[in-house]
């Protein structure tokens, strides 16, 4: 094996008897290999650039817009209306919202044009997607952002509600659980919310989350919470602040 061959082998793993033998006998290659190896490793120490949060926001906006076929998603200007995708033209002409007959059949598969309510649904789907996706991330900070997005979901969105309840009950991070309790307020109209909050209260042991749940139950005006609150206010092992809060809540709910 020549020096040139050996050195090229090095970065690919440098296996084999030939390679080892050459190194054993060639000092210049050994030095080279050592220097290059160190340099190669040092490249690892260069700090990693991180994109700003805007990238994610823009991506999900684009995704949502793309689904609705809004002109904004297309970066190229429409030159000839008969060559551009039908939905794009319809949107540009404001026909989607108006739901005029001219839009009918212009969509590739012959379906009627999207109505405003359907458009709203698409946007809601996008928000749901972002919330659910972020809430499953490894990073607690990302999950926290996911909970913020969940707060903007549709109050009827059961998937997001479910994800929030799961977060309240099972997220390993106190701050994420706390934020999730607050986000449940978005779903006040749903009867499941009160039930879930009450169930959670009986299982939570972190004082600040217990307080948040108690406050939520009061805001939801949930009288079924009374037995649990009574139990909590009398529980001597519970945090003093929590007990006070439970007592206050009982008074509020009378």
């Amino acid at each position, binding site marked *: 094996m020549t020096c040139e061959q050996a050195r090229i082998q090095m970065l690919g793993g440098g296996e084999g008897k030939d390679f080892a033998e050459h190194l054993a006998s060639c000092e210049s290659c050994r030095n080279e290999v050592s220097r*290059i190896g160190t340099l190669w490793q040092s490249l*690892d120490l260069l700090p990693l650039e991180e994109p700003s949060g805007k990238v994610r926001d823009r991506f999900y906006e684009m995704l949502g817009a793309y689904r609705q076929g809004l002109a904004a998603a297309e970066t190229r200007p429409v030159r000839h209306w008969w060559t551009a995708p039908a939905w794009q033209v319809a949107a540009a002409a404001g026909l989607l919202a108006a739901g005029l007959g001219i839009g009918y059949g212009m969509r590739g598969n012959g379906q009627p044009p999207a109505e405003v309510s359907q458009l709203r649904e698409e946007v809601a789907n996008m928000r749901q997607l972002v919330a659910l996706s972020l809430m499953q991330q490894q990073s607690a900070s990302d999950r*926290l952002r996911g909970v913020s997005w969940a707060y903007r979901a549709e109050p009827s969105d059961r998937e997001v509600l479910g994800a929030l309840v799961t977060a309240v009950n099972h997220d390993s991070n106190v701050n994420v659980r706390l934020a999730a309790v607050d986000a449940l307020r978005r779903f006040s109209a749903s009867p499941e919310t009160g039930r879930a909050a009450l169930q959670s209260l009986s299982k939570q042991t972190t004082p600040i989350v217990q307080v948040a749940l108690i406050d939520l139950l009061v805001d939801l005006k949930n009288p079924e919470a009374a037995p649990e609150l009574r139990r909590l206010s009398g529980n001597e092992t519970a945090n003093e602040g929590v007990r006070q809060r439970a007592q206050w809540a009982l008074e509020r709910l009378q």
Partner: protein
Amino acid sequence: MNRFLIGGMMVALGALQTPAQNPVQNPAQNQNPAQMTVAFSNPSQPRKLVVKTMMHRVTIKGYDGKDAIIESSAISERRRRERNVPPGMHPLNVGGGGIEVTEANNVVTVSAESFFGGGDIQIQVPVETSVTVNTVNNGVSVENISGEIDVESVNGGVSVTNSSGAVLATSVNGKVTVALDKVAPGKAMSFSTMNGTIDVTLPADIKANLKMKVDNGDVYTDFDVKVTNDRFDTTQSNTEKGVRIRGNKTTYGTINGGGPEMQFTTFNGRVLIHKK
């Protein structure tokens, strides 16, 4: 992936990986009896440090190296006992510090969950490591870390300084003090205590949406905060001592036009938000 040479010795990446959840053997080159050095199995991938303790104080510092270095009196205690075992016997872990260190999939886990013992644990990790700490009876201090910082303490304070990662800190009975030099944009953060002041310093140019909830205390800041919504919910009740007013209030505001959410929640304590 690629293999590379370290100082003339050929090491395949596979050899560096320890099988899942294996305890780390004390490396021979460690002269300091109270110290343990652990390598991350894949140095070019994101690193994580997880610490769980009961009675120990934890100090974590970012440094310019690649390994995790753990120092504690508990380690030397354990080694001392391992060296002095009478023949035919084994030490019982009574009254000892009991530190366990494992590494798997680029996550170094340090746990000292015994009710006995105590003392300090000092950990050094590469600056770009994300750190998760869970302690019960003593405080946590994190310094010079640019990865995500998640700290939970029950009866101790949390202090984060000279750092730039996203912070989620909580304490039941302790003060939360956080000083960030700069923050990567788009990171959400949260600070919460039950009984304790929350004292946070943020870069002056940070863009954030603030959400502050204080029950018995006030919020002070030298930022120019644009308050967007002030929800105040009170109730009055008659007690034999007179009228008692209770309220739970959440204030929303923005800094520098708004950005990701920063939440401050405390029951008994004040919130201080400083501009750096």
